[in-house]
């Protein structure tokens, strides 16, 4: 792991923890409805992929683990808050919800719909990487329950059959027993894909394991499945503390360096929290944003300025094709 990666992980780990705490403190009316659990293991997994800002790096669907993986792929706390609080400045202009959005330049792809869908989509994206011989892989975070859906199995089956370079992470439910592990191991065996199971292992080991899975995927050895043990079974704060100690012991860093990183992370989150209340709500015109690239949406005729002298509302519907 490079020195930059270590510092990034510390920064994003601190930022994730602070952001999660801030979200918990938000008044219910402003709090995002979607899950905003920030698991430092998810940040580490995402950081083990290859990030770029030119659309040529790896692709990540942060899914239910957002914003952790999104932070690793370059999202800022302010962008995240803009999105989850539906501000007009949000990356999706408040036209889509959930906890993640799409910015293909940075390798982020978002979704808040049915489970399993993104395993299909990321398998196809990974297939495109393989077809072009690119050093790129796809990473998708799904809820653990995705493997109960047909959509997920169709996506996983396609990925395995095509040996697509995709890594699928199953985000844990609050609490599951040993049987759950056996079930996931059976699924991985069934598709002939590797399985990584992460409990409270040192984060550096998590990073190296995922980096290895990524290398194998890009080399054409096929997808990997990652399962995370429930948070209740793992002391994530201890994991982050241990990583911090490791970073101190292994690298050329001082306690002052770490404090500086933590202060910078806190400043970013504080800035986002202070700023979000001042961000504008979306313009209603956004609702008319085109749903196709070449066909404008038209407003309802009852909301057009009336050209009629009798003042009847609206105007005759135009001949322009609208959404339909």
């Amino acid at each position, binding site marked *: 792991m490079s020195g930059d990666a270590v510092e990034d992980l510390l920064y994003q780990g601190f930022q994730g923890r602070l952001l999660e705490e801030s979200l918990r403190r938000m008044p219910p009316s402003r709090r995002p409805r979607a899950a905003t659990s920030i698991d430092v293991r998810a940040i580490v997994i995402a950081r083990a992929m290859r990030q770029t800002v030119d659309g040529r790096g790896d692709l990540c669907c942060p899914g239910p683990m957002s914003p952790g993986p999104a932070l690793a792929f370059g999202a800022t706390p302010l962008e995240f808050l803009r999105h989850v609080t539906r501000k007009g400045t949000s990356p999706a202009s408040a036209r889509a919800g959930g906890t993640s959005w799409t910015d293909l330049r940075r390798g982020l792809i978002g979704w808040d719909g049915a489970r399993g869908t993104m395993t*299909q989509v990321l398998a196809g*994206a990974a*297939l495109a990487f393989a077809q072009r011989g690119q050093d790129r892989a796809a990473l998708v975070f799904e809820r653990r329950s995705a493997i109960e859906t047909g959509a997920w199995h169709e996506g996983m089956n*396609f990925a395995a059959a095509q040996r697509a370079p995709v890594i699928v992470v199953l985000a844990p439910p609050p609490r599951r027993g040993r049987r759950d592990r056996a079930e996931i191991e059976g699924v991985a065996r069934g598709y002939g894909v590797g399985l990584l199971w992460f409990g409270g292992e040192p984060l550096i080991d998590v990073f190296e394991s995922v980096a290895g899975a990524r290398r194998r995927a890009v080399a054409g050895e096929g997808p990997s499945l990652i399962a995370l043990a429930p948070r209740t079974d793992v002391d994530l704060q201890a994991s982050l503390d241990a990583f911090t100690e490791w970073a101190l012991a292994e690298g050329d860093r001082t306690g002052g360096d770490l404090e500086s990183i933590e202060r910078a992370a806190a400043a970013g989150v504080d800035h986002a929290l202070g700023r979000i209340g001042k961000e504008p709500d979306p313009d209603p015109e956004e609702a008319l944003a085109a749903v*196709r690239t070449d066909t404008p949406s038209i407003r309802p005729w009852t909301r057009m300025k009336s050209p009629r002298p009798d003042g009847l509302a609206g105007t005759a519907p135009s001949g322009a094709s609208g959404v*339909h």
Partner: protein
Amino acid sequence: MSTDLPAQVTRTREGRPATVLEAIAEALWEEMERDERVFLLGEDIGAYGGAFKVTRGFIDRFGPARVIDTPISEGGFTGAAAGAAHMGLRPVVEMQFMDFISPAYDVLTNYIATSLYRGAGPLPLVVRGPVGGGNRGGPFHSQNVEMAFFHTPGLKIVYPSTPRDAKGLLKSAIRDDNPVIFEEHKGLYRAPYCRELLPRDDYAIPLGKARTALEGEDLTIVTYGLMVHRSLEAAAELAKDRIRAEVIDLRTLLPLDEDAIVASLQKTGKLLVVHEDTRTGGIAGEIAMRVNERAFEWLDGPILRVTAIDAPVPFSGELEDYFLPSVADVVTAGRYLFRY
């Protein structure tokens, strides 16, 4: 890789007329040669060449990376096509029969159609396959699927009726930046009456533009797909009674060429909509409403429709013949409307 061309893509090169199936195969072949981003996914389209042999021999020329035999999982490979489209490829998904598109309904309507609006960017992909009855295929191999998707903002729907249109529209669909459902009536695939000499040059027909298949002044028949041919037969019958029907072939259902419909109606004052799809919730209802909004004053009679009856497509030949709209039905409706 093989240098021999599959027979179904050589008709135009050899100066011979092509069927609808051959026109579609030519469009796919030429687009794959023109643009390496174009690739195909579907069940049995590679080694087997597809259930209707549209892609026979493609795998020999383009290889298994661009002609992908998928598992039997329409949702899975349509979703994968979306991912590939996100990454700049231009996938063409084949549904073995369009009846099987229903497992992909979720990803098509929830993910693919909403992509641009959600800020996830355009998704240029085509989902094509055979539709339509008359082949004794029964309820699961004979449906028309357009209205299952017509209500979904973000999609385009194309339904050609001739070899020339099939080739030109499919090329446009592949080059379009939006997701396109492309319906091919299997009754037209190899129909002897539906062969055409196609232009040798590369050509594309713009989506969203209807064509006048027959000019007339007494009534307008708006239709598409196989029903264009049934309507033309009916128009010939009506002409014996000196009723001059105009036949408008929609070609693209979404977006709908309202202007063409209204322009024809303003000439004839009478409107008959003919579609093979079932009656309730069929496109005739939408067309009637749009004409009501835009051209009510031009109507000299009720808007009528001739459609399949509201039932699953029957398996028995006798039942299916009764179920499908016939030339006689169109003639009856045309005479009624003319005299109204």
